[in-house]
């Protein structure tokens, strides 16, 4: 089992696949996400061809829950430390993982070879998150069937005992100008037809005319609800049809 202690926290990291080839770092979304989000969905198919690194963000999965540090700038720094030993790599990021991926790529020129953004929350205010959890009742156990679902014990602890919601609310939204600065990096954007962030595909398309943009039937958690269609898209983009 892999753990890395960086920036004041112990992080859980999972490496899959071969040792050779351009690595793919897969980033999960906040709250209900963890390394399991990708482990049980697209990661195994990609790991047939490429080294894959999965991680649990701080406060998620088996990583340490710290009182603060959930803003995109802090998480970009976490990611930099957790990937420091890798050659230039591709990133697939879901939800907030995609936001961190965008800002990591902008802040670390030459480190990111290609960028897959899965339902990136760049068009709707993140403060919806608070309502999302309030409307879904109290804590319960996180079973395998709850790869996505209502708040879990861990999620509730994260919300009640850390600055995660205020960090998110205070984080400046990703702008079209920011996205445009990714020109030169191959970008895949996939959004859900019923997701509140469906408009992200249009925004990415405007900012990056060369980006490959797709709308799949499904909601925000496409890696799960649209696993059968998203996985081949990711394999094609990240592996180049290998």
């Amino acid at each position, binding site marked *: 089992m892999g753990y890395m202690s960086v920036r004041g926290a112990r992080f*859980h990291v999972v490496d899959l696949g071969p040792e050779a080839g351009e690595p793919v770092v897969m980033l999960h979304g906040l709250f209900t996400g963890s390394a399991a989000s990708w482990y*049980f969905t697209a990661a*195994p198919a990609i790991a047939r061809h490429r080294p894959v690194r999965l991680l649990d963000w701080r406060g998620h999965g*088996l990583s340490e829950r710290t009182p603060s540090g959930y803003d995109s700038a802090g998480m970009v720094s976490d990611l930099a430390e957790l990937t420091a030993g890798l050659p230039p790599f591709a990133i697939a990021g879901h939800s907030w993982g995609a936001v961190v991926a965008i800002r990591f790529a902008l802040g670390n020129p030459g480190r990111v070879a290609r960028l897959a953004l899965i339902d990136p929350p760049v068009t709707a205010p993140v403060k919806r998150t608070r309502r999302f959890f309030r409307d879904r009742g109290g804590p319960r*156990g996180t079973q395998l069937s709850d790869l996505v679902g209502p708040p879990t014990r861990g999620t509730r602890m994260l919300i009640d005992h850390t600055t995660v919601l205020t960090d998110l609310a205070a984080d400046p939204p990703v702008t079209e100008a920011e996205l445009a600065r990714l020109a030169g990096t191959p970008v895949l954007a996939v959004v859900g037809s019923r997701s509140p962030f469906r408009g992200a595909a249009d925004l990415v398309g405007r900012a990056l005319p060369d980006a490959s943009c797709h709308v799949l039937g499904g909601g925000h958690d496409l890696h799960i609800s649209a696993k059968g269609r998203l996985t081949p898209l990711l394999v094609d983009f990240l592996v180049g049809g290998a």
Partner: protein
Amino acid sequence: MAGEVLDEVVQMLVEVVGEDFLLDVEVGPQTTFNEDLALESIEFVALAEKLQQRYGERIDFAGFLAGMNLDQIMTMTVGDLVAHVESRLPDPVG
């Protein structure tokens, strides 16, 4: 070898979820990870890492999962996992 892998998997489950959580459950080949053990998804990842550590790359748990849909993963039994591990181990000599 029969039963050895099962015993090891049960021991790993204890390490992952803690003995207290397994006190009421007699873990056998028919036990399901999701329904019977209420295993958290990230705990399943931790179990897979332990298997990999113990048996090495030949287990290829990710490859095992790549051929499954989510329903199959959610209904997986301890016996399914043990069978996969055993299928990847070298045949006993003699």
